[in-house]
């Protein structure tokens, strides 16, 4: 390999990393825009907005890194959509006023259970090991927090319980069979 080829390799590597980052940021922007729907009509959007920002950073990093991280993050976002958007839909449907709504923790529990089921069921087929599980859980948790943080601590606890129970069910079923 000539010196010119070595220089070209460095330039190609930079082009690849830049292109990958651009691609990851584009997908992240779309994902954050979708999760930002959960902020519509939110009485205190500060906390959920911070979670959405954290979701953006984690998602962009995982997509840019690629491999198991990327696959896990994509699954996590898909699973996290239910607890992210269901509370906003419930808020819009029942028009709950004030800073707290009693039905929201239950909705978060249900959304968390759906997310957990998806994580457990699809996660077993990922073959990404611990890294994909970690990315999936982190992204699903952050996406869920965007929707459930307006419901307060009860909402977040419902989300965590839902995800844990939902994810445990398919994993235990697979081990038993």
């Amino acid at each position, binding site marked *: 390999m000539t010196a010119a080829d070595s220089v*070209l390799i460095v330039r190609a590597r930079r082009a*690849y990393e830049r292109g*990958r980052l651009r*691609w990851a940021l584009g997908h992240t922007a779309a994902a954050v825009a979708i999760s930002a729907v959960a902020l519509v009509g939110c009485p205190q959007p500060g906390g959920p907005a911070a979670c959405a920002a954290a979701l953006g950073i984690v998602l962009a990093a995982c997509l840019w890194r*690629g491999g198991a991280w990327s696959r896990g993050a994509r699954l996590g976002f898909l699973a996290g959509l239910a607890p992210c958007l269901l509370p906003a839909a419930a808020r819009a449907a029942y028009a709950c006023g004030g800073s707290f709504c009693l039905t929201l923790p239950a909705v978060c529990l249900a959304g968390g259970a759906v997310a957990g089921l998806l994580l457990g069921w699809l996660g077993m087929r990922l073959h990404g090991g611990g890294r994909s599980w970690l990315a999936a859980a982190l992204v699903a948790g952050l996406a869920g927090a965007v929707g459930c943080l307006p419901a307060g601590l009860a909402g977040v606890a419902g989300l965590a319980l839902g995800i844990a129970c939902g994810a445990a069910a398919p994993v235990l079923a697979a081990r038993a069979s």
Partner: protein
Amino acid sequence: MERAERERLQRDLEQLADGDREAFHPVFVRLWPLLRGFAVRCLPRDEAEDAAQEALLRVFARAAEFDRRRDALSWVLGIAAYEIRSARQRRRRRRESPADVLAERPAAGRSPEAAAVAGDLERALAAALAALPSRDAETLLAYARGDRPDLPGPTFRKRVQRALGRLRDAWRLSHDRR
């Protein structure tokens, strides 16, 4: 490219699209000679090297977008073909640019014969320009001076092309008569 090598390129590019950096070097080693050879067949050697480099960098910049359902070789050659087309267009524009026209002018200290021939040519060019519609002549003079009238770039280029075509026709007509 042989079938086995093509399949390996497909696999490596899929891995690179998935973010596996281990696949970077095999893809580079496979693509660089391929793109260089492809460009040399379509462009002069000095421009082929640049076009092949641009194509290679573009392939790596877009590797994350590669769709595994597509054929890797066709995808890569599609990008290379676009770069080669762009290089050709750049070359064509360079040839038509006023800087090149000026560079092709004879030097100040030319011989009397050359001066006479140049004078004849300039007179013939002036006559051909005078035969053109005034808007075409103005467009060509502005283009030769390097001025850019208050027009969008593509519109101006289109006008220049049209005016050059008419000038060529007028030139051909006057020379055929002679």
